[in-house]
């Protein structure tokens, strides 16, 4: 990462960059806590953002949660935190508690959704969120409200027909949409080479007549700038952009996976040299915007937030079994 005077054409706002770093660290630490809770038998399932924080926070902080919407996928802890979901809200969902704002404990962890924060509820079948995002953007265009929609997915999920249908639809109608592919090189065990015959998912953009941008996910500022440019284009009515962030997956696919059977030896170690959290911290340090003291203070603060969220969620009640039948259809009462 090079030195910067400007970010998206503006003088660098260092406070914003520190916020960026905060969310990256918070995502990492909250994620790590989830694994501990899983190993302690307190949570049945974890699916991680580790290795993708730079891409996730970089995009989210380039958006305006007051008008924009997102349709995240299961790996997007960093996205939802930076977009306004609190650590407590995340932990309530993680431990499947009654007050989980995403689904009241109905969905698996990491299936985020919260209308008040412009996060569309998502499911497990991959890529359905991309057509939803095009629909949100369509409504923005038709209703002439400001704002854009960003949709997130993995590179494996681009093999689904809905990826194509969404991009085609959005490009024909010039919708205010950003599609962010977090390319971590694997779909569970399937490496990218078995998933597609191109190196860059972004190459597909030309098939829709839209820009396709490749950015290094460990550089949240590059991601941020690509998102700002895409968002401005979208707001000008020029249509969607496909952003591909090259990232890494530092954990197995989920707590149910064992990646030793399919990851080549040494690969993870090499990828760790490009850890977005470490890279960004080093960069801030190099340009004298960060020091050990600040790091210690930040880690302490993050730890408090994570502890608080964990305690809060652990003490929170489970849903009442009598609510099993609620919300199948609209009801004015509940």
């Amino acid at each position, binding site marked *: 990462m090079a030195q910067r005077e400007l970010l998206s054409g503006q003088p660098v706002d260092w406070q914003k960059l520190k916020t960026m770093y905060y969310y990256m660290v918070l995502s990492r630490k909250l994620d790590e806590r989830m694994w501990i809770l899983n190993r302690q038998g307190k949570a049945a399932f974890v699916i991680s953002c580790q290795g993708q924080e730079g891409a996730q926070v970089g995009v989210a902080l380039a958006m305006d949660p007051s008008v924009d919407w997102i349709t995240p996928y299961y790996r997007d802890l960093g996205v939802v935190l930076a977009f306004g979901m609190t650590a407590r809200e995340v932990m309530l969902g993680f431990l499947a508690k009654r007050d989980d704002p995403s689904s009241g404990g109905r969905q698996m962890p990491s299936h985020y959704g919260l209308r008040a924060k412009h996060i569309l509820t998502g499911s497990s079948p991959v890529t359905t969120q991309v057509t939803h995002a095009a629909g949100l953007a369509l409504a923005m265009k038709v209703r002439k409200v400001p704002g854009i929609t960003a949709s997130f997915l993995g590179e494996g999920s681009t093999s689904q027909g*809905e990826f194509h249908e969404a991009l085609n639809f959005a490009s024909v109608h010039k919708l205010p949409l950003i599609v962010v592919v977090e390319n971590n090189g694997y779909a569970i065990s*399937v490496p990218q080479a078995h*998933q597609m015959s191109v190196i860059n998912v972004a190459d597909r953009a030309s098939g829709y007549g839209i820009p396709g941008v490749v950015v290094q996910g460990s550089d949240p500022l590059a991601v941020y700038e690509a998102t700002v440019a895409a968002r401005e284009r979208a707001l000008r009515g020029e249509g969607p952009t496909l952003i591909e962030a090259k990232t890494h997956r530092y954990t197995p696919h989920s707590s149910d996976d064992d990646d030793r*059977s399919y990851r080549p030896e040494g690969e993870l170690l090499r990828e760790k040299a490009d850890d977005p959290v470490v890279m960004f911290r080093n960069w801030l340090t190099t340009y004298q915007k960060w020091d050990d003291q600040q790091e210690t203070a930040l880690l302490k603060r993050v730890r408090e937030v994570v502890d608080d969220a964990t305690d809060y969620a652990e003490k929170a009640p489970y849903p009442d079994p009598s609510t099993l039948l609620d919300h199948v259809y609209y009801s004015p009462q509940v």
Partner: protein
Amino acid sequence: MAVMSYLEAIRETLRQELRRDSRIIIYGEDVGVRGGVFRVTEGLQKEFGEDRVMDSPLAEAAIIGTAIGAAVNGLRPIPEIQFADFIFPAINQIVQEAARIRYRSNGDFGVPLVIRAPFGGGVHGALYHSQSVEVFFAHVPGLKVVIPGTPYDAKGLLAAAVEDEDPVLYFEHKAAYRSLKGEVPEERYLIPIGKADLKRSGKDISIITYGLMVNYALKAAEALEKEGISAEILDLRSIRPLDVQMILETAKKTGKVLIVHEDNLTGGIGGEISALIAEHALFDLDAPIRRLAGPDVPAMPYSPPLEHAFMITSDKITEAARDLAKF
């Protein structure tokens, strides 16, 4: 005879079939090096090579659509859908293509194809890793739907599905994979699709069910036995075609029928079975037909109290059966 888990029985059958017939190929998401997310296909790529056991891109419509083409051009594909919940992107290919190809071509084309998919809940899978999707397919003429309830049946039914000239959906309950164990013969054998199996003989009530629930029903029958209630258990083994004859026989024999499935109550196969009994054996009944089934919510929730409230258990079966026996 070797004792195997349900999962091992499926894997060993796949291995045996791959050895027997070079036209068989297996593909799907993560079935190669990873051996499937449940490890059903573990070791198969190593033994049979990447051409015959291969990872596909993450695209279910393509998995099934290409399997149709491959079947027409001389292969016997056994595609895997990673979770039954993810079969829906391929539903057009299964329902509108695979199921209709023989009929629409007046018998000129056929699609010998076995679609394997793990299904069912009680494994903290939440809405999208717990569903019972069988009845969507049981509704469709041209398809066959097989759901084995024991390791022994898993083998014989899978071999029969592979031999079948028509598309067969073969659903494997996730909670059965490692929990069910039983004796499985080494040699190949076929269990005819559409033939139910009387898993236990009784005289007071009949419990008609399939898949994992067979085992819960057997456990319930033991508890009922102690209370002096003799339960007969009919394992359907396939829900399309249904073994109408055996369904009617057991209904006539005991006069009291409890139908159990994890799938949602409304529109579940239990409704069809009830209708068959009502049409053909109404006057042999001593009590109204009872159905014990998943509640009518779109899918199984994750949080333990909610998941538990959804799941059928042997206790719930015992209770429903006791109630019926008293009628």
